[in-house]
C-alpha cells in the first residue's frame, strides 16, 4: 500500500505503508542510532513526534519486550528505509512490523530517509502527516499540518498513580515526566527503593513520604508548558534533598531556578553525542533525545554552573547546583539505547544521598 509523508512545507516523500493505516500528523524528528529501535519507539519522550531512523536497515533483530522503555509505543509513526522481513536474534519475540500493528502505529518504509534527514537538518524540525491517501490538493492539508502543536504530552505519558518498587537501599522519589523504565531500573540495580509519582504530584506530597533523594525523569514536549511542575520543583529545591535530573527534568529544574530554554533547530537524537565534563574536561559519548535545551546564561552563577557541554555545538548538557546537592543532565545516562559510558552518574547520585543521609543523621 502506497503511503506518503507530507511535510508542512509541501515536500512529499513516498513509501509503502506498514503497521496501522490511520493518518497521523506530528512533529518529524530523526534519530541517528544504528541500533535500539525498540527502546526508541517506546521512549515516552517521543510522544507527539514521528521518528525517522537514519540507519537504513531496521528490524533485523526483531522485538524483545524486555527492551521496551515503557508499556507501549509513544511515537506517532516510524519512518524507515528498509524493514527486515525476518527477525533474527535469540531473544526475538516478534517482528517490528507486527509490533507496530499491535500498537496501532503507522509506519512508512522505502523512504529516502537520507534526503528527508537532510531536509530536516536544513529547514529544521517540522510537522508532517503520514497518510495512505493520495491528496491531489495539498494546500488545505498543509495548513492543518502547520497548525499541529505538541500539547499536554506529559499528562499523557506520566503514570496515573504512585507506585512503589521495593529495595533495600535509599528511597528515591522518581517524578515520572514520561520516564524511561531504565531510570528506575538503574536505581534499583544500585539497591534503591523507587517510589514513582505522577508528574503533577505536589512537592509537599512527595516530601511527606520522606525520600532520601529525588529523581526527575526525561519526558516529552516543550518544558515551558509545564508551569505547575516547575513551581513544585522550586519547593523541592528549597527542601534541600539530593536531586538528580535527566533531560526534561533537567530543563524543568533549570527553569524553576531562573534559566531559560529554547528549541534547537533539529535537536539531538542519537547515540553518538560527545559531551564534555567541564570539571575534568573529559569527553564521553552519550545517548541523547531532546529538541529543547537549557540556556544557562540567565541562571545565576551562585545557583548553578554548567557541568557538561556538547562538544559539537557547545550547548548546555548539564548543571551542577551550587547550594544544593542537585545535579542534572540533558543527555541520558540510563542509555537504552546508546552508550552506557555515563551510567556512573547514578552512582554519583547515590553518593550524594549518602552524604545527605549522614548529615541528616548528624543533625
Amino acid at each position, binding site marked *: 500500500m502506497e503511503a506518503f509523508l507530507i511535510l508542512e512545507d509541501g515536500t512529499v516523500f513516498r513509501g509503502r505503508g506498514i503497521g496501522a493505516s490511520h493518518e497521523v500528523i506530528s512533529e518529524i524528528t530523526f534519530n541517528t542510532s544504528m541500533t535500539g529501535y525498540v527502546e526508541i519507539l517506546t521512549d515516552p519522550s517521543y510522544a507527539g513526534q514521528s521518528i525517522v531512523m*537514519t540507519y*537504513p536497515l531496521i528490524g*533485523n533483530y526483531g522485538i524483545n519486550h524486555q527492551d521496551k522503555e515503557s508499556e507501549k509505543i509513544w511515537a506517532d509513526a516510524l519512518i524507515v528505509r528498509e524493514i527486515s522481513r525476518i527477525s533474527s536474534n535469540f531473544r526475538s519475540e516478534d517482528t517490528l512490523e507486527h509490533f507496530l500493528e499491535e500498537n496501532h502505529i503507522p509506519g512508512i518504509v522505502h523512504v*529516502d530517509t537520507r534526503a528527508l534527514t537532510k531536509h530536516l537538518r536544513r529547514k529544521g524540525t517540522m510537522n508532517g502527516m503520514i497518510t495512505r491517501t493520495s491528496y491531489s490538493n495539498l494546500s488545505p492539508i498543509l495548513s492543518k499540518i502547520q497548525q499541529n502543536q505538541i500539547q499536554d504530552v506529559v499528562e499523557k505519558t506520566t503514570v496515573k498513580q504512585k507506585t512503589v518498587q521495593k529495595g533495600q537501599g535509599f528511597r528515591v522519589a522518581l517524578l515520572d515526566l514520561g520516564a524511561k523504565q531504565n531510570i528506575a531500573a538503574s536505581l534499583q540495580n544500585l539497591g534503591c527503593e523507587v517510589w514513582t509519582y505522577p508528574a503533577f504530584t505536589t512537592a509537599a506530597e512527595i516530601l511527606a513520604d520522606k525520600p532520601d533523594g529525588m529523581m526527575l525523569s526525561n519526558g516529552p514536549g516543550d518544558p515551558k508548558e509545564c508551569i505547575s511542575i516547575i513551581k513544585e520543583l522550586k519547593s523541592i529545591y528549597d527542601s534541600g534533598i539530593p536531586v538528580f535530573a535527566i533531560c526534561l527534568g533537567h530543563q524543568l529544574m533549570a527553569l524553576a531556578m531562573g534559566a531559560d530554554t529554547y528549541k534547537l533547530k*533539529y535537536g539531538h537524537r542519537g547515540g553518538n553525542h560527545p559531551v564534555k565534563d567541564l570539571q575534568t574536561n573529559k569527553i564521553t559519548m552519550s545517548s541523547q533525545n531532546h529538541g529543547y535545551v537549557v540556556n544557562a546564561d540567565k541562571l545565576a552563577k551562585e545557583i548553578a554552573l554548567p557541568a557538561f557541554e556538547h562538544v559539537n555545538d557547545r550547548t548546555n548538557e548539564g548543571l551542577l547546583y551550587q547550594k544544593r546537592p542537585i545535579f542534572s543532565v540533558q543527555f541520558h545516562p540510563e542509555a537504552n539505547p*546508546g*552508550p552506557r559510558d555515563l551510567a556512573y552518574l547514578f552512582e554519583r547520585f547515590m553518593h550524594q544521598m549518602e552524604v545527605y543521609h549522614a548529615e541528616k543523621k548528624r543533625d
Partner: protein
Amino acid sequence: MPKRKEIKKVMMIGSGPIVIGQAAEFDYAGTQACRALKEEGLEVVLVNSNPATIMTDTDIADQVYIEPLTVDSLKEIIKREKPDSLLATLGGQAALNLAIELDECGFLQEQGVNLIGTSAQTIKRAEDRLLFKETMEKIHEPCAASLIAQTVDEGLQFAKEIGYPLILRPAYTMGGSGGGIALEEEALKEILSNGLRLSRVGQVLVERSITGWKEIEYEVIRDGKGNCITVCNMENIDPVGIHTGDSIVVAPSQTLGDREYQMLRSAALNIITELDIQGACNVQFALNPHSFEYCVIEVNPRVSRSSALASKATGYPIAKVAAKIALGYHLDEIPNAITKKTFASFEPVLDYCVVKIPRFPFDKFTYAQRTLGTQMKATGEVMSLCTNFEGALMKALRSLEQNVDSLLSYDFSGLSLAELEKDLEITDDLRLFRIAQACRKKIPLEKIQEITQIDLWFLDRVLYLTEIEEECRNFPLTKELLYKAKKAEFPDTVLARLSKKTEDEILALRKQYDIFANFNMVDTCAAEFDAETPYYYSCFDGTNEVKTETTKKKVLIIGSGPIRIGQGIEFDYCCVHSAWALKEAGYETIMVNSNPETVSTDFDIADKLYFEPLTKEDIANIVRIEKPDGAVVQFGGQTAIKLTKDLTEMGVEIWGTQGEDVDAAEDRERFDQILENCQIPRPKGETVYTTEEAVAAAKRLGYPVLVRPSYVLGGQGMQIALFEQDIVEFMSVIKRYDSGYPILVDKYLMGKEIEVDAVSDGENVLIPGIMEHVERAGIHSGDSISVYPAQSLNEKVIDCLISYTKKLALALKVKGLLNIQFIVDQNDEVYVIEVNPRSSRTVPYISKVTNIPLIKLATQVILGRKISDLGYPVGLQKKASHLAVKMPVFSFEKIRGAEISLGPEMKSTGEALGIAKTFSEALYKAFLGAGINPIKTKKMVMTLNDRDKEDAIELTKSLQDLGYQIYATPGTAKVFTEHQLTVSKINKLKEASPTLMDLILQQEIDFIVDTPAQGKMKNKDAFLIRRNAVEAGIPVFTSLDTANALLVSLQHQEERPFPVNMAEDLIEKN
C-alpha cells in the same frame, strides 16, 4: 606545533614487503600518519624496505630509508638520525615487533628515543598471551578457556582436560601465521610445534573452540587523557573459525540488538582503558548467538587491516587521529576532517551498509587448498557501500574482478540436494555461492544455518537475492521488478541473462522507466551535519548529492581494484601519483576504486572519490553524472586497461595511449606486423584457440614452448611446456579461467631478461634506467630479482635496447608509459618478448632508484607536454652510481598446497629493495629485506634436477669455501662427489631416517637450493620437501641463478654491518 613540545623528530617504521596478512593497508595508514605528522611541522624519518609504497616517497617523509627492517639496520638509522621519538603502531605487526625488540634491549632508552603513541608496556600486555589473559581476568572480561603453551606437552595435557576442538594462535605473529584448529591429537602436535617456532616468544595460545559464535570487531580510539570512542563495529558474516581477514565482513553489525551492541562496546572501551592504549586499537569478540555470553578473542594495539576498512567504511581517518594522539592531542582538539564543524571526539554513524569481501589467490594457485580457517589466505579485499545489505554484497562480488557478477557466477546446479547439503559444510571462498544454490533449491534457512552457522538474517538476504533472480527469469521486467532488482544492485549483464534480453535492451528499459544510480555522500554522521567531503557511493534509492559544476576540466582516474598476485600496491602508487600530477596541472580529479586498503581511496587524494566496482556499468553510472572530459587508464593495471573500450563507447576521451594501440600490443598478428615493420626480432610464436592447435603449434616451433592466454597480467595461466602432455594439461587450466581470448604459444628462449619502463610523448622516449633480472628468462619478471642499473650489458646491447624502445613506442603511438621485456641471448641478440603500453609493476621501484618521477612525467606527457620541456634529456638517463636490487617476497607459507617453484606465472606478493654502493651489498640488503637471513647455522641443502647438477658445482664449492656445510640428496651428492666435492648425503623421504625432512623440521639449515624437474615430471617428494621447508620458514631457492645471487651477497659479508643510507644520499638528482 605538536601538543607535546619535546617532540621534534619522529621516526616511523613501515611494514615492509607485502605479504598475505600485511598488505597495502599499512601504506595507507603510514602515509596518512606521515602527512599528519608533517602537518604539525615535525621532521619525519621513515624506514621501509618496500619500494612500491607511497610512504617511501621523499615528499611524504623528510628522510626516507629504504633499508631492511631488521633491528640492526634500525639501530644504525637511529644512531644516524637521532630522532627523539619512535612511532611504531602504524606499520603493522612488523613495525610493532621491531619496536618492542628495540625497547627490550634498552637501545631506545640508551639513545633517548621515546616510543610515542601506545607504550611498549601496553603493547606487551596486549600481545603477550599470558599478560593479556591476566589483564582480562583483572577487569573481568571473559576469554575462552585457554592455556599459554610453551611446549607441545603442555598443550597435549590441556587438551586432555578440556577436549577438542581447540584453536591455536601463536603470539606475536600476524595474519594468524601458524595458527589453526586442532580436532585431534596429531593435528594438535603438528600445529602447536609449528606455532611455537613461528612465535617470536615461543608461545602459543591453545583455547576452547568457540567456532560458530558470531565474530564481532570494534575499532576503538583512545587519547592520552582517557577519552575513548568506537569508530565502528563490524560483524563477520562467517562465524568464528575463519580468520577475519578471510571473512565476508559487514559494517555496522546487522544482527546485534542495542543490548549486545552496547555490551560489547563497553567491553571494548574497558579493555583499551585498562591497557592504556593511546591511539587506535582493534578488539575482536566472539559472541554466543544464543545468549549474552561473549569472550575477547584478541586485541591489536595498533592500526590494523580492520582499521583501514573501518576508516573507509565510515570516513573517519583513524591513522591520522592515532598519529595526532601520539603527539599529545586529545580527541576534542582534533577537527573532524569531514564535517569540519565537529571534532574527532564523536562516533561515526552510518546511513548505509558496508560489505567487505576478501580476494583469494586460488586462481593463481590452482592446486592450493581453498579451505579457509584461522590462517589468513586472502591477498587483498574489496569493499562496497550501498543503502541495503544485498546491494552492497552484489557490488562487492563484482568488485572482486574474478569473472563474478552475481550469486550465479559459480554453478552448483549439478549437485543433488544431498550433495549440496553435504557441501555446505565446506568453508571455502565459494561457500556463499553454495548457500545461494541451497536457497534456490528451497533448503530451509534454518537448515542452512544449522550447517553453516551463519546468522539467519544474512541467509535471508541471500534468499532474497535468489528470489529476485527467479522473478527476473520468469516474469516480465516491469518497472517495479526492474527497480527492485537494481536496488539490490543486479548488474544489467545479469538481468540480461536472466530475462534473455540484451544488455542494451535492459538499458533501454531503464531509460524508459528512469531507473538510474544516484550517488550519496559518506559523511560520518548520517546527514546530521553538513559535509563537504566528496566521497561517494551509488545506490538506486537515493537522491543524487554530487556537485558536478566546476570551472576545471574533469578527469577520471580508473584505479586498480583489489590487491592480487600480479597487480598489487604498485598500481595504486601510480594512480595516486597521477592524481597528484593532474591536480597540480589544474584538473579536477575523480578517482574510482573498490579497494579499501589503498592510499587512492583516502578521500583527500583526488578531488572526488567514487568507491565503486570497476565494471563497465558502474563506471557508466559515474560518467552519466560527472560527464568527465577524459579518463586515464594506463595507471590502474589491467583492471583499468580493460575498461578502455567501454569508456570510449560511453564517449569518454581516453587520455594517453589509445585503446586500439593497447590492442595492437596484445593482438598477436598486429603486434607481429609492427615488429616486422620495426625490424625487431621476437621469439617465434603462434596464436591458437584449441588444444589441438596448441599441440600442433608447439610441434612446429619445437619444445620447450611457452603457453599463455593473451590479455593477462602477472603471467596468469602461463606455463613452460616440455612435452605434449604439458600443453594438454595447461590448456585445460587456462580454459577454466579465460574464455574467448586467444592463446599464445611461443618458442621459449633462454637468455638474460631485461626490463625497461619508459615515457613516450609520441616523438621521443625517456628511459629512466635499464633493469636486469638475475634469473634467466622463464621466471616471471615479477618473481625475478631485478637489478638496476643492468650489470652485464655492453654498449651495443644498450643502444639496441634504447632504439627498440623508441621504435616500439612510436609504432604503438604510446603517449605516456610503456614497459618492455627483452631477452638478450648469448650472442647479444636482443629479442622483444612483451610490450605493455601502460604503467607497470616496476614503475615505483625504478622511479625511486633513479629519482625520476615517472608517473608525474607520464601524466604531463599525457596532458600534451613534450619530454624535452620537462627538464630531462630524451633517451636513456644517466646511469646511477649506486646499485638497487629488487627482491620478490612470497607468501607461500600461508597457502597450503601451493607449489612454490617459480616459473612464468607470477607468485610473489610483494617486494623488498636493497640500495647500496656495491652489487653484493645491495643484494645482501635485498635478501635481508625479504626476510631471508642466510647465516644462522651455516648448513644448507642442495637437491637439483639433472640439468642443474653440473652447473651447481662452482656454486657449491664457493659456499663450502664460505664455511657452509653442504647436504645433498643422493643423485645430487653423487655428481658432486664425482667432482671432488665433499658433501653430506642426506636421504630422500622414503629412505631411512634421518631424511631431508628431519633436517627441515629440526631447523638445522639456513636455506635449500631445490631446482625442480620441469614440466610434467613433477616429483611428489620434491613438492613435499619444498612445502615443508617453506612452512618451517626455511628459504628455498628454486633457480640456480637466485642461489648464485645469494652467494654473491654472502661473499662480502665480512664487510657487515652494511652502512645504512638515506635514499637521497645515494640517489643524486639526475
